[in-house]
């Protein structure tokens, strides 16, 4: 994943509560075979209205999304963070996030920032015409008006985001342990290996 340190940019003051993953990316777009391109269909229902917030010229390609409580509830589809990332979002700020969505967003390099509702209200106000800054290292969101809102983040996830290390890379770093296990497995339970044919790649 791409490393995340500090990001300054436009924030879309969306603010809606209980946005479920079907609203983020409707089921009819799940027959896709890539992560790319889903951004065009993100929030499809909402964006049927030509005056929607996401297609306003000043918000196109904005890296920050501000939403209401319980963002990302509903089905566990990983297409939701893919769609958000494809739209250009790297941060979502909301009072709270649904659990599975939070895991999926992290796996796809999106930073979720949970802040109390009154701070969200203030950010919504500022975002109307000013950029926000999200500083992961110092765990703080700032505005050009000297607002400073600290946020909590899981240390493991923070580390991954700062270093741009995805979970796979972290596990690959344990390659010696895995190789040792494979050696033990081959002698203790030799029937496990070779179940499927090796096909020339």
């Amino acid at each position, binding site marked *: 994943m791409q490393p995340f340190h500090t990001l300054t940019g436009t924030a879309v003051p969306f603010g809606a509560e209980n946005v479920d993953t079907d609203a983020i990316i409707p089921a009819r777009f799940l027959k896709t*075979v890539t992560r790319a391109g889903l951004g065009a269909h993100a929030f499809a229902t909402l964006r049927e209205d030509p005056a929607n917030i996401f297609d306003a010229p000043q918000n196109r390609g904005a890296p920050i999304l501000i939403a209401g409580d319980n963002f990302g509830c509903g089905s566990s589809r990983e297409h939701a963070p893919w769609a958000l990332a494809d739209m250009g979002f790297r941060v979502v700020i909301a009072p709270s996030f649904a659990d599975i969505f939070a895991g999926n967003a992290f796996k796809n390099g999106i930073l979720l920032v949970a802040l109390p509702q009154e701070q969200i209200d203030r950010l919504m106000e500022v975002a109307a015409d000013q950029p926000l800054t999200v500083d992961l290292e110092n765990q703080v969101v700032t505005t050009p008006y000297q607002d400073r809102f600290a946020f909590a983040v899981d240390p493991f996830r923070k580390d991954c985001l700062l270093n741009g290390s995805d979970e796979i890379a972290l596990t*690959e770093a344990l390659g010696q342990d895995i190789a040792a296990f494979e050696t033990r497995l081959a002698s203790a339970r*030799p029937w496990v290996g070779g179940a*499927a044919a*090796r096909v020339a790649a």
Partner: protein
Amino acid sequence: MSAPRTLYAKIWDDHVVRTGDDGTDLIWIDRHLIHEVTTPQAFEGLRLAGRRVHRPDLTLGVPDHNVPTTDRYLPNPDPASTLQLATLEANCAEFGVELIGIHAAAQGIVHVIGPEQGFTLPGLTLVCGDSHTATHGAFGALAFGIGTSEVEHVFATQTLHLARAKAMRVTVTGTLGFSISAKDVALAVIGQLGTGGGTGHVIEFAGPVIETLSMEGRMTLCNMAIEAGARAGLVAPDAKTFAYVEGRPRAPQGADWDAAVAYWRTLPSDPGAVFDTEIVVDGSAIAPLVTWGTSPEDVVPITGTVPDPAGFADAGKQVAAAKSLAYMGLAPGTRLADVAVENIFIGSCTNSRIEDLRAAAAVAQGRRVAPNIRQALVVPGSGLVKRQAESEGLDRVFIEAGFDWREPGCSMCLGMNPDKVPPGERCASTSNRNFVGRQGPGARTHLLSPAMAAAAAVTGRLTDVRELMA
């Protein structure tokens, strides 16, 4: 002597690559089954990062969710599903993964072909990007569904970071009555536990009823463990398990077989092993069950009536029940046996194996599908099941009775291909989920056993199969 351990703990302990400091372990994965829907983005991720599939010899692909169940040599009218199927083929070729292709004799639903091929074995960890992976637990394998990021993680490392679940034992006592199948046991367990009852647990099914179930029946039961909220279902491997596995194409042979069986015999839970939760279900009391609502826990005996939402103790359940009944177009107090259906689906990874088809054919034999039935599909779980059924003449029984005999796949279980229940119509279905819109937008699903589905087909309404077979 070490402390007595459960089957679940034994499998877990034998697969820990490394114990983490955050409550999770890095767990080795012995088997990875893949299909066309949840893998394209995982392969894409590998490609973007320049990674390979670490152990192609532990990975097996098959298309199932999207495949047409009609003649597959005709053009597929859905370009999106055509692309997903082609993508699976191209990815398997690029990454050196064996694929049982759409025209292969052994093609079928991923959870049917795993056991059939001897790819599924006792004591393994097995994953697939599909929640009904729990099916393989019937062999005493720790099998569970994963998301696409995890699919990519397994591709690249053959491991997953996992936290240990709690262990639950569901003991089914007594003996099953006439015409009562594993599906009825599964529905009875979910009815008793509720869809959240198994949350955070891996369920081991045990007791005299489970011991008497065939491997097909155990698969039906473990398949639906997920509908009780459990992470996985398990049945201890026994002589029946070994007999099923022996001689299958990918099963161990010779000295490997002997060593494997010796190991598998050590797996059943030790006497005195402690489970976090213990549930007892009276198997002798189970009647043929059907669902009336939009959750698999909404079960009643076929002899019963549609419940009154006001009768539920908790307020949330009252609201949910009222909503379910509105969607299902049912009034409280209606006798289930008076509910007419227009569609019949015998298939899915829950009930598409040879034993299921035999049970349905026994009811269909010499009878006719009722005139009010608009479609009655029999969709075998795999090409091998289909051929076996044909060699036993079951296809003739179904066709003569007026059923449609199809090619293997997921079909009407989730309506990703053209096999859908039309809006507002009812379906007596042997699948596992009766969620809103699961079998097509507006479709009304009643879950039941294969024999009960066949009984509904010949009478045109939900029917107590015991009356037909007495």
